[in-house]
């Protein structure tokens, strides 16, 4: 495939499977570590929380089945694994008897859309700023402005979300407060709906972008500084190449490579941050679904949502890993040598 060696693809794929398997296993083991019957505990808490308890025997039974209290552990485990592979997470307790997968399928596109959009914007803005911080021809004012933007760098998106929501939705009323589209529009391919989706999505996306670009900027700055000292950049200058061309083709193109790898290390945290932002903006995505499930003690949904988000994360890492050799020819070589 594109001259990428099989061993590389194979390794990446195995890592992906391992990630998904370990995550699924953790989700399975955790409830079992408890000395008491988790089904009973959960039912008890549901009752005390005043949640839906009618037909408790039935729920208890369904919970028992999920936790498979009658089968031997190994059988339970394989049953569970099969369920996971077929995306069968059982039935939601709160919106009984909707299958968990149906709920997830409704929420997933929103989260994916928001995630892809904000990740890409953040990556581009962050790296561009990092590159301009180091480039010797960047205009002076920019060199002062960019570092001061770093003040946002490490604030988690929930905090920026709260702040932006307060300023733009509560005080200025420029943007709608919550939800992912207006109540008055009908979902479909019409302008009203699309405009509504965009205005509703803007603030959540902004609150992610505004605080996470700094991670890429700082990383890019360090990488650009070391690339700047490389012999090939010096020779590019001696070749009489145009400064912008050197910036892009010689410096950024090389400095960006470790950033792409860093993507894999960071994506887990970025996704967590987004889940929380969705919860604050009551965005109809996985974050809200998860939050509601926590409120309702709807364990099947919690389990399903967590697994799907981890699967999404692992998939994004896999995609990045697969694309990486296309931007770095050395990978093809190394993998051949290995």
């Amino acid at each position, binding site marked *: 495939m594109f001259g990428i060696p099989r061993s590389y693809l194979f390794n990446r794929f195995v890592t992906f499977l391992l990630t998904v398997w370990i995550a699924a296993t953790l989700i399975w083991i955790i409830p079992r570590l408890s000395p008491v019957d988790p089904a009973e*505990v959960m039912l008890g808490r549901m009752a005390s929380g005043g949640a839906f308890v009618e037909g408790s025997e039935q729920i208890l039974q369904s919970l028992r089945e999920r936790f498979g209290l009658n089968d031997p552990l190994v059988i339970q485990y394989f049953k569970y694994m099969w369920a996971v592979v077929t995306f069968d997470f059982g039935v939601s307790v709160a919106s009984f008897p909707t299958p968990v997968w149906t709920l997830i399928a409704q929420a997933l596109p929103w989260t994916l859309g928001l995630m892809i959009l904000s990740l890409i914007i953040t990556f581009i803005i962050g790296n561009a700023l990092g590159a301009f911080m180091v480039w010797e021809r960047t205009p002076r004012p920019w060199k002062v402005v960019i570092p001061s933007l770093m003040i946002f760098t490490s604030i988690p998106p929930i905090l920026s979300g709260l702040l932006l929501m307060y300023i733009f939705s509560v005080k200025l009323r420029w943007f709608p407060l919550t939800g992912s589209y207006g109540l008055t529009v009908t979902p479909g391919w019409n302008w009203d709906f699309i405009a509504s989706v965009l205005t509703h999505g803007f603030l959540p996306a902004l609150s992610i972008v505004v605080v996470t670009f700094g991670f890429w900027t700082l990383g890019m700055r360090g990488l650009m500084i070391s690339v700047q000292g490389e012999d090939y950049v010096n020779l590019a200058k001696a070749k009489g190449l145009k400064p912008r061309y050197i910036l892009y083709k010689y410096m950024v193109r090389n400095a960006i490579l470790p950033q792409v790898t860093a993507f894999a290390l960071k994506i887990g945290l970025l996704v967590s941050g987004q889940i929380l932002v969705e919860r604050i903006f009551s965005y109809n995505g996985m974050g809200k679904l998860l939050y509601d499930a926590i409120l309702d003690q709807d364990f099947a949904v919690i389990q399903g949502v967590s697994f799907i988000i981890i699967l999404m*994360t*692992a998939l994004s890492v896999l995609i990045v890993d697969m694309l990486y050799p296309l931007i770095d020819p050395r990978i093809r070589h190394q993998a051949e040598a290995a």
Partner: protein
Amino acid sequence: MAEVSAQTQAPEGEAKGRFNRFDNPWLNPKLLWGIGILLGIVLLGLIGRMLWNTELVFTGSTPLRLPPVGFENLRGQPGEAAFPLGTDGAGRDLLALLIIGAPNTLMIGAVASLIGMTTGIILGFSAGFIGGRTDDVIRILSDVMITIPPLLILVVFQSVYGDVSLLLMAFLIAGFMWQSPTRLIRAQVLSMRESGYVKMAQLSGASTAHIMFREMLPNLIPYLFGSFIANVTTAIVTAVGLEVLGLGPQRIPTLGRVIYDAINSGALIQNLWWWWGLPTALLAVMFIALLLINLGLDEISNPRLRKI
């Protein structure tokens, strides 16, 4: 030495400049500011406990929804000096909540990061030194675990077990804080193992323990500190995230818990800005301090960054 060469002079001049300017690279202004702010927050907690009535963190111990001194709430009530930062919707004093909550939040971060760090040092050195199968297992495990978002596994855990103590929360988060130090230390150990000074130490009959702790570890200090601080940030973000989802310790005030209550009671729409705004601001200050420390440490371990 009037006429010295440019080539040898440039690096030496730089090195000497570094030592002249602050004698000690650890006296980095960013680092000192960051540490200063964090110490300030810890002191707020310590001194606050002595000077302020911390009983006010209990529900119903104060009037409801009073604004900070000098402001009025929507019902036209002015702030009272007895509750200088205002009160929340359940009748708790915000100042008391911050005094108790802020150190709790920092503590979770520090403990989780410390445990993660220690695990990372042990695993990283084992992987780098023992090599072979051990290395493979540790490497693959940390590669895999680093992509799993900690928040979600913790959500699953806490939704099953309900209330947790502060310390248990820190332990749980620590389960996701060892991967990046492990990777970092492993990579450094592998490169240092080939370095001249480690070979020299081997030639000098040094024991493995000596090589690890006396030759390698000191050179890792800036990286370890950097990784530690980055992990404190991540741990706090994760803890606050859990708290904002309504999980985490239920009976002990933390900053995240205060924000959770505020959002849940519609504090944003009711314009009770101090309720969510003050803990948010305090968290932001905390994160900025951590960022400053990290930037400072970056400059210490990579002198080239200082020029910009």
